[in-house]
């Protein structure tokens, strides 16, 4: 396949970026999207030019490192997968493909297609855990959990923290990401005692970091590579309201 690529190039956080055109030829439809970019970079290196920087690591759809906005969609035209699982057979010979980084105020660009998603870590640090130490915990089978609840918690917990939900949202909202973690714990008995503080702290941190609000377009669910349901957002909103209605202050 021969393709035209329009790629966002930006030397560093301060530099001004622009879209640059590249041609790639002789691409196998069986190669992955990143293998296609590897070949482009190999050519650029041979010409002595700066290769395109993009984030990637496991290349099997689970680490959440990769993050490309391809033809206007996070992780490209296929659904239920990450960019590293996208294969070139999803494109046609002669296609022009635009490749941009995640666009959100809370995800500043580091270089080219790489952004800083440290805000997600800060949200988890605000309360995405059960406050226990290593050791001194009850036997694993001391708490029975209904299979349904465990399965729902697992659905929510499968979030890979890639940020596609933020990238696709017109408000750059992180609601689906935060809700996935809040809902995981809301379905489980572990950590119930701190549920009210958890949701308030995580939501407050999300707001402080400059993520936008939710206006219910459901684009996040559509583009989530793990197909995490927006019903988790409803679950989080109930948790949040109930924390507020109880008038529970965050005392810690």
């Amino acid at each position: 396949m021969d393709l035209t690529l329009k790629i966002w190039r930006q030397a560093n956080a301060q530099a001004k970026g622009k879209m640059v055109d590249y041609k790639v030829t002789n691409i196998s439809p069986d190669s992955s999207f990143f293998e296609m970019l590897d070949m482009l970079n190999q050519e650029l290196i041979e010409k002595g030019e700066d290769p395109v920087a993009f984030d990637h690591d496991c290349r099997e759809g689970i680490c959440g490192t990769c993050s490309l906005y391809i033809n206007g969609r996070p992780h490209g035209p296929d659904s239920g997968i990450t960019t590293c699982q996208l294969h070139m057979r999803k494109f046609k010979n002669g296609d022009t493909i635009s490749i941009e980084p995640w666009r959100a105020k809370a995800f500043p660009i580091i270089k080219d297609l790489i952004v800083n998603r440290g805000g997600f870590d800060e949200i988890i640090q605000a309360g995405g855990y059960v406050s226990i130490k290593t050791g001194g915990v009850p036997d694993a089978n001391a708490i029975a959990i209904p299979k349904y609840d465990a399965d729902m918690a697992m659905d929510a917990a499968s979030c890979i923290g890639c940020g596609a939900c933020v990238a696709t949202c017109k408000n750059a909202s992180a609601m689906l990401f935060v809700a996935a973690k809040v809902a995981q714990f809301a379905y489980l008995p572990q950590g119930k005692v701190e549920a009210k503080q958890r949701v308030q702290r995580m939501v407050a941190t999300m707001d402080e970091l400059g993520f936008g609000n939710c206006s219910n377009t459901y684009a996040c669910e559509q583009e989530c590579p793990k197909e995490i349901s927006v019903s988790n957002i409803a679950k989080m909103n109930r948790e949040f309201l109930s924390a507020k209605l109880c008038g529970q202050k965050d005392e810690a």
Partner: protein
Amino acid sequence: MIKLDAKIPEGQMADKWTNYIDHAKLVNPSNKRKLDVIIVGTGLAGAAAAASMAEMGYEVKNFCYQDSPRRAHSIAAQGGINAAKNYPNDGDSVYRLFYDTVKGGDYRAREANVYRLAEVSNSIIDQCVAQGIPFAREYGGLLDNRSFGGAQVSRTFYARGQTGQQLLLGAYSALSRQVKTGKVKLYTRRDMLDIVKIDGRARGIIVRNLVTGEIEKHSGHAVVLATGGYGNVFYLSTNAMGSNGSPAWQAYKRGAAFANPCFVQIHPTCIPVHGDFQSKLTLMSESLRNDGRIWVPKNKEDSIKIQKGEMKPIDISEDNRDYYLERRYPAFGNLVPRDVASRAAKERCDAGFGVGNTGLAVYLDFSEAIGRLGKSVVEARYGNLFQMYEKIVDDNPYETPMMIYPAIHYTMGGLWVDYNLMTTVPGLYALGEANFSDHGANRLGASALMQGLADGYFVIPYTIADYLSDQIHVPRFTGDEPEFVQVEKEVKDRMNKLMNIKGSQSVDSFHKRLGHIMWENVGMGRNTDGLNTALTEIPKLREEFWRDVRITGNIEEYNPELEKAGRVADFLELGELMARDALNRNESCGGHFREESQTEEGEAKRNDEDFAYVAAWEYKGDDVEPELHKEHLNFEAIELVQRNYK
């Protein structure tokens, strides 16, 4: 000159760890605040260790090359985690888990370490459940277990096909809590480039900030490496693209012995290589072998036609198929251990019977299972894997057999550690896949997660106190001591040297060539000639690399080519040590198959008389042969027998 002392506690096997804890030295809480611990890596072992030690009161600095600790490659583990809970009431026990692990490792692991691993396995499950990890449950609300290769009991806990992800996110959440309290200082997007020793003890590390390119010095009273394995020396593997052996390799060059580097696990069920541009291999869960039947054509002419695309697998009649595992191993059939299944596939393909356009693939066929169980049952069991296969290969496995081929998956070898998990450098520790201690010559499924978390949550927090209790009077280091300045200079010199080569070939092209040498000569089947070839070819390639590599960009900026160059430079040395170790070990054991050491039927032949030892290599200088030290393995609790799967 290194002296190996495993420091195994006295007493009966079952009492050693308890005795150790009873008599270990402690550090009181007010002194813990005065002690800095550096932990490199945020996978299961690193994150668990960082969280646990911060909770205890130490000041922790935690480093990773990824943009977030949550992305460490532990996240990709699919199957599950073993523990001796015996919840299914099927006769499991700590001893049995210990026994299976030592036997599965083909009797090349240290008994005392493995026993401790089995002993703490149950606490891991308790800890993970308390963290809110959504393990699979039965309708009664209690935890579900499944069976896994190499065991006759069901002792594997799992969270769908994403157990590694869930366990890592649990450790990450505990770590995040400590980051919030300020007890852990987190440094992401940092590559560890060297170790700093003061008066012979590990006191810090030199890292490169991957975003700015700045070289940073970080100091501590002890340094813990939880940096994973070195499977990427083969270029193509199931490891993440960034997984590398550099921290362990730098430790080796600073005096830490490297143990059993040739012990590599090759996983039989991976998606085959499809072209020269391939960057990575994808693992398909081993559970597929429970119902899939593995075969190649019986006649070479059929294989050739299939390779040319003139024939399809369904065109080959039952009589003309060779179910070679069932033929060779009637007792275990398609369920032989990973190493045996991998070698058998290679044997058929080397003999010209392979399929796919490269001839380097075998069929994994579900038609019999679909006939016996119905499509819906097969779909319920393996639906997600079939879907993953179809996304990558664009073939429907319900209709046409899957194609699989073995791939590099895990490295059992690593830094030599004693019972305390300390390397031969005082104050330098190695955890998880980065050390060598628990899996011998072959790792069983669902045991990597167990070891990572055991080391991080329940071993190092105890054993490091034994060392740090002596260090409470040592004042904090500043990172400006002359030793730090000296190593920083060496790191910068090396980097400048790399940048100034300005050659003509890319880093990746060298990495691919190294991978090819390793796969051909230090891969599934090894012999004297091949290993000697590797020992000639690798130094030549290394010389060419240092003469002709081209690295674009600059040092003081985000520069992935420079990152890769440093890692590949280290792989070009590590690969040679692997070949040397494989040549020295003239026996077949676990994942290491020496063609000279096999039975008449072509099965692996272990040699306990001459090789029941850990080969620990000591660095002696760049152009000097490393020195071999032997830690003899004494088996007190288990009797050595030859594995037999016929």
